[in-house]
C-alpha cells in the first residue's frame, strides 16, 4: 500500500476527513470526539502499528507514515487517550500533558513524567514564564 492508497482508504472510510500531504507523509486533521474511532480504524484495518509524539503513525507493511492532528481549544484541551490502542502513547501523552496542559481522558497513569512535581505551569506553551527563562539576545 502506497501513501496515495492510504489516503484514498482513509477518505473512503471517513468522507468528511481532511487529508493533505505534508512533506512526504499525508496528514489528517480530526476532531477530539472522533479521534478514538479514527485511531482504531488505522490500527485494525489499515495496519498502522507504530506511533509517536502527536500521532505520527507508521505502517511497517507499507513503509508509509501518516500524521494525525487533533485541534484542541487552548482553555479546555481535552482529548481521549489512545494509549489503549497504541501502548507507546502512554508516555508521550504524559509528556504532552505536563508540557502543554492537555488532559488525556482515561489515561491509565496520569502522573508527571519528566517535570518536577512543584513546577507550576506548562513549559512548552509559548506564554510560559520562569525567572530563569530569558530571551537570548539576537546575534548578527
Amino acid at each position, binding site marked *: 500500500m502506497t501513501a496515495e492508497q492510504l489516503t484514498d482508504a482513509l477518505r473512503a472510510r471517513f468522507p468528511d476527513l481532511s487529508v493533505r500531504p505534508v512533506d512526504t507523509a499525508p496528514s489528517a486533521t480530526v476532531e477530539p470526539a472522533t479521534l478514538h474511532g479514527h485511531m482504531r480504524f488505522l490500527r485494525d484495518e489499515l495496519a498502522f502499528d507504530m506511533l509517536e509524539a502527536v500521532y505520527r503513525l507508521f505502517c511497517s507493511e507499507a513503509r508509509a507514515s501518516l*500524521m494525525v492532528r487533533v485541534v484542541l481549544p487552548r482553555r479546555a484541551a481535552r482529548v481521549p487517550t489512545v494509549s489503549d490502542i497504541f501502548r507507546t502513547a502512554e508516555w508521550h501523552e504524559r509528556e504532552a500533558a505536563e508540557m502543554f496542559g492537555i488532559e488525556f481522558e482515561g489515561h491509565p497513569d496520569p502522573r508527571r513524567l519528566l517535570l518536577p512535581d512543584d513546577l507550576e505551569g506548562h513549559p512548552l506553551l509559548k506564554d510560559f514564564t520562569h525567572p530563569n527563562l530569558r530571551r537570548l539576545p539576537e546575534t548578527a
Partner: protein
Amino acid sequence: MADIPAPPTAPTPAPAASDEFILNVGPQHPATHGVLKVVVTMDGEVVKDIVPHIGYVHRGLEKLFENRTWEQIIPFTDRTDYLSAIANNFAYVMAVERLLGLQVPRKVEYIRVIMAELNRIASHLLWLAAYGLDMGAFTPFLYAFRDREEIGSMIESASGGRLTTNYFRIGGFVHDLPPDFFPRLRAFVGHFGRKVDEYDTLLIENAIFVARTRGVGAIDRDLAMSCGMSGPCLRACNAPRDVRKDTPYSLYPRLEFDIPVGRHGDTWDRSKVRIEEMRQSLRILRQAMDGYPEGDFKVRVPRNIEPPAGEVYVAVEGPRGEVGFFLVSDGSRKPYRVKMRTPSFSNFSALPDILRGGKIADLVAVMGSLDLVVPEMDR
C-alpha cells in the same frame, strides 16, 4: 520555643500485601547507567510490578531549542544521546535541509554515512563493555575500550571532539576529513572484523553469559511494536525494522547491508543483534570507502538560515533505534517547535512488560540489554 514544622511527607506507595515488598533501584545505582529510578514490587524474588521514574536529567531542551537559531541547536543534539552524537546531528541537520529544500554534495553523504557507522560501532562497543561489567565480566570492557579508542581518535581527527563532536553543519561539515583519515580507517576496517568475532566468542557465546541471558526478559513482537520500540531491541523480536531500509535516506539506498534479527526477543537476542550490526557496519564502511568521491565537504548556505514556514519529520537509524526530529518553522531564524523522538524513551517504557513476572536478579540483565542512555530519554 517556636514550633518546628513537620517535614513535608513524600507520597507513600499503595500498601503492599503482607508477603509483598517494595524495592527502590536508583536514582543512584550502577545498573541504571545514569540517573533513573525503578520501583519494584516483589513477592519473594518474583517481580510483580515495576514502575519506572525518569526526568532526573530533564534539561528542557525542546524549550531551549525555541530560543536558539537553527545552527545553534546542533551542539545541543550531541548532548541528548552522547554516545551517538553523530546520529543526532545527522537527523537534525537532514531535517533542516529538508525544510530548506537543500541538496548536499555526494561527498557529504559519504562522510555522513562513514561517521554514522563508525559512531554505531563505537556505541555498540561501549554497550558491550558496560554490559559485560553488568554481567560480572570485566575483561570485555578492556578489549572493547581498546577498539573504541581507535574510533574516538579517528572521529577526533575529523571533528576535534571524541564524544560530543558537533561535526555536522547544515549543508555539510565544519571541516573536511584530514588527509590521514582514510589510511587509519582502512587499517581499522581491516582488523576490526576479527575483533568482532572475538567478542562474539568471548562474551556473547560464553556459557555463563548465555545462561544468564537466554530466555530472560523476552518481549513479544506485537507488544514491542505497540510500545514503540525500535533499533536492536525491536529487531531482536524478529521484526526487521530499520529506518535505513524503511524510509531510506542519504546514501543507504545504494549500499548493500542486511538487517540482523533475533528470534525470541530476549536479552541474548538483543546482544547478538548488536554484534551482528557491527559486522554490517563494517560492510557499509568498506563500500563507502571504495566509492568515496571527490568534491566539496559543504554547500554554501546563508549565514542566517530562515527556512520557509512548514514542518517536517526526519528520522535516522541511530545505534539505539529511531532518532527523529519533528521541526516546525514559522519562517524565522529560530524554530517554532522542535520535538525529538528518542529511541531510549520508547524502549524503556516497555520495561514493565518485559520484566513483570520475572526475577529481580534479571533486572540488571534486562536494563543493560536495552542499552539505555538517560539524557536521551529526559532531553
